[in-house]
């Protein structure tokens, strides 16, 4: 049946009428950057109003609209949908916030067919409801604009596949453009030149004051919330309820007692754990929280129930409740829990809330140590979020240590690691982060850290370790500290051992530790061995890759093997590359390890050995042989092409 544009537009209008824009409405400023580097550093080529989002999407077809949680991205997209009233422009809203756990399986069933994937996205998440078969009935002279909200609501891999699908759709479908909202995380884009990068800037102080004065006739009592109120969600909360923190909200508006808050926290965490999505099955949530809590949350407008599923009115509410569980269970602070609440390191609000609500500096510092053990970048992002909320209690010493350890990776041989380290520093608003970004070498970093004086004895102990000179051999006692249960000390030792001269005996000691250490220590050791190229160490790394039960050890071994291939002499290099060629099946079997391999092969150009492309290409060609489709093979073809571009044929 021929699609009727008028009917389609009416469906969208009615849907938007059912969710009116919060009042008062805010004026948003969009910062435009050249790419992720500039976006993360908040370096903007220009700043505009939101109308430019549409204009620029029409120019290149693709805009990534990035921003923090509660930053206004959803409001902006809906405002655009309301205001775009051009005769030849059709708007389709795609709300990925409605993604549920079963949708992952549905997505896999679509296979690689772009039209099937697109059809799935439109059928499940689009308003107006439009499908590829009646898509073609839209007149040719109609511009089609997809507003895709919430890429961060799905797993990282699916997010990447959704971007690919939309990218391709925009390429082949005449007059089609897309604006995708996302957190400020780096995404893989097939051709970054075809994208425009936009950032929703925090609300400026004059606008905040204007609204506060209009509502309360004063601003003084909100002074301590200044940083927080630059986030539109929190300003809106203050204007509605006169408070901005979630604890007060759940106690005063949802009337949850302390014990109920804990139970709601467990239910919220379990929903993330079981479903991995913001929309979750109601029954298990109810089983934990109980009927009374469900009623309270619904009456407060926090929980929205639709048949057998539920979601929170804003995901920050869900994140806050999950953080209540995290705070209450310090014995569970580990990779597993952090992966769950961060959606595998793509969303850090829960961790930031947790950091904010830890009631002592000592506990907050311990939390950051646990985070660092999970992910140095995850720790950095959570700390940065904590700054924006201005309530986090971690010590300056802890923050400096975390920043310095990230800064050290700026000079990592593997470019992806260096880039992540830069990103972690860029999102941090402190003067130390800025200074760490300006340092020109590892030697300068060490010198700089040596001069930092902070009032914490443990910091000085750490400083002595961190600033260990490159020419000094470590003592056996120092090497032994790689087994330290304090993750900061353990990882500092690991990183220092990578830059100092290790004798054969030192390396033998580390290899011996590998045999009977706990999993995180084994990870640290394989990390060190990557910087000590030798046949013996390569064999140890291959053993770890083949048979260590802990995935992070295999991940670390993969990285270290590639690093070793780049550092070693020809004999060891060839041994490593042949070994990797023989293990392509194992690489393919483990997504995390495979992704790490794909990242690790891009070493610093100036440090890459001669003929790096021709050395690595056979491994990639072997991987490509397993490709089940032309499209899959294309992934490997592009990887080789990137190698050639960077390192020559």
């Amino acid at each position, binding site marked *: 049946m021929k699609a009727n544009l008028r009917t389609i537009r009416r469906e969208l209008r009615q849907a938007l009428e059912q969710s009116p824009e919060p009042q008062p409405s805010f004026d948003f400023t969009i910062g435009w950057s050249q790419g992720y580097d500039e976006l993360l550093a908040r370096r903007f080529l220009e700043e505009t109003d939101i109308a430019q989002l549409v204009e620029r999407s029409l120019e290149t077809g693709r805009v990534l609209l990035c921003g923090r949680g509660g930053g206004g991205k959803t409001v902006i997209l809906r405002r655009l949908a309301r205001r775009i009233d051009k005769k030849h422009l059709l708007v389709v809203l795609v709300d990925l916030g409605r993604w549920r756990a079963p949708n992952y399986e549905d997505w896999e069933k679509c296979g690689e067919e772009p039209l099937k994937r697109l059809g799935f996205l439109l059928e499940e998440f689009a308003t107006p409801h439009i499908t590829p078969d009646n898509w073609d009935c839209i007149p040719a002279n109609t511009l089609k604009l997809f507003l895709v909200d919430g890429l961060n609501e799905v797993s990282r891999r699916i997010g990447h596949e959704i971007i690919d699908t939309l990218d391709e759709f925009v390429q082949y479908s005449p007059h089609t453009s897309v604006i995708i909202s996302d957190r400020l995380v780096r995404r893989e884009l097939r*051709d970054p030149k075809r994208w425009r990068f936009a950032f929703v800037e925090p609300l400026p102080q004059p606008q905040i004051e204007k609204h506060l004065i209009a509502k309360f006739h004063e601003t003084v009592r909100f002074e301590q919330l200044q940083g927080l109120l630059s986030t539109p969600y929190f300003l809106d909360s203050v204007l509605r309820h006169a408070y901005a923190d979630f604890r007060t909200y759940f106690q005063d508006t949802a009337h949850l007692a302390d014990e109920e808050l804990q139970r709601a926290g467990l239910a919220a965490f379990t929903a993330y754990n079981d479903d991995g999505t913001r929309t979750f099955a109601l029954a298990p949530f109810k089983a934990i929280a109980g009927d009374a809590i469900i009623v309270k949350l619904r009456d407060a407008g926090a929980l929205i129930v639709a048949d057998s599923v539920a979601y929170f009115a804003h995901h920050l509410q869900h994140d806050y409740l999950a953080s209540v569980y995290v705070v209450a269970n310090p014995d569970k602070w580990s990779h597993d829990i952090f992966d769950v609440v961060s959606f595998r390191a793509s969303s850090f609000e829960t961790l930031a809330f947790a950091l904010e609500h830890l009631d002592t500096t000592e506990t907050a510092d311990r939390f950051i140590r646990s985070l660092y053990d999970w992910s140095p970048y995850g720790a950095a992002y959570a700390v940065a979020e904590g700054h924006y909320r201005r309530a986090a209690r971690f010590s300056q010493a802890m923050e400096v240590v975390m920043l310095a350890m990230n800064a050290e990776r700026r000079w990592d041989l593997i470019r992806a690691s260096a880039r992540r380290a830069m990103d972690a520093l860029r999102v941090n608003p402190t003067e130390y982060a800025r200074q760490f970004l300006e340092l020109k070498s590892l030697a300068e970093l060490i010198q700089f850290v040596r001069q930092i004086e902070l009032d914490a004895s443990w910091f000085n102990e750490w400083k002595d370790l961190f600033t260990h000179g490159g020419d000094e051999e470590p003592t056996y006692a120092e090497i032994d500290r790689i087994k330290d249960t304090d993750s900061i000390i353990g990882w500092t030792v690991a990183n220092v051992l990578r830059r100092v001269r290790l004798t054969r005996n030192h390396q033998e000691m580390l290899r011996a530790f590998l045999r009977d250490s706990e999993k995180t220590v084994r990870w640290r050791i394989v990390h060190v061995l990557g910087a000590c190229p030798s046949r013996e160490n390569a064999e140890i790394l291959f053993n770890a890759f083949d048979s260590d039960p802990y995935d992070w050890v295999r991940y670390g071994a993969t990285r270290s093997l590639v690093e070793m291939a780049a550092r070693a002499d020809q004999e060891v290099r060839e041994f490593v590359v042949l070994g990797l060629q023989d293990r392509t099946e194992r690489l393919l079997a483990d997504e995390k390890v495979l992704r790490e391999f794909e990242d690790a092969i891009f070493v610093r150009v100036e440090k890459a050995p001669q003929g790096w492309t021709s050395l690595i290409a056979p491994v990639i060609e072997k991987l490509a042989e397993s490709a089940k*489709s032309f499209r899959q093979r294309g992934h490997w073809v592009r990887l080789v092409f990137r190698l050639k571009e960077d390192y020559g044929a």
Partner: protein
Amino acid sequence: MPQLLTDMTSKVPTGRLGFAEIAIVTIIEEEFEALRETFELETNVPHTHYYVSQLTGSREYEHVLCKAPERGNHHAQQAVGELIEDFRPHFILLVGIAGGIEGRDGVALGDVIVANLIEYSESRKRVAGQDLERRIPIDPPSTHLRDTIVDPARRDGSWTELIRLAPPRGVEPKVVIGPIVAGEKIWGDLNNAEQVALLQRYDNAVAVDMESFGVGLAVHMARQYSDYNPQYLVFRGISDLVNAEANDKTRQLWKRYAASTAAAFSRAVGHRLLDMSKVVNVNWRQRFLKRIRSTIIKWWWGK
């Protein structure tokens, strides 16, 4: 108002950078230079890798030329995908060189092959000792254009006057219409078992290349919407014979000439395509105006 929105009020589908009647894709530098010279496409579209005869305010072009970043079907698919997005061309020509197969349809060095079918040799399933073919749907080169445009140009013969280079030795290049096998390798060892098997399997193919399949796939993916119906052709000048001796040496000697014969024939075809388009576009515009009128009338009555 952005350019695209302005375009849309008065045109059939255009791309992000404008509209081109004919888009030409090449792969290696010799091909690119031959096409640039033959079609006189010397002007670079700023900040892009496209070449046109001259920039226009209307952003409408008769021809646009680009070179894929590398050999291979994936790069060709990507290049054509970008061309489609940027210029929504009516016609897409893949023009370049290829390895001919000696002993098939009299194929000789310097001849121009026009593909009537593209076979992709890499999509196979190896199981239980068998090597089975697995087909991937793509668009074949346009039969309609082959019959109405290519064949008359071939018979006319005057296209050889457009060849800009002299051959390494005396030849009379001709146009041969036949199947091309597209793969991901450069073939040229007559004793190689895999090549021998390939030529046996595709026993009626007249040439091998590495990009035709990618082009066909891109066109297939673009032709999902009734308002946009691109068609493509493949022209390959024969630079070497894959099942002959000293293949590599021959290719080095003949590739520039082969590129120029392919460019010359594609130029002759291009002239005819443009003539045909002038008629077609008038019809497009008439249909478009009729649709606008009917929309306005419906809106008026709806009020």
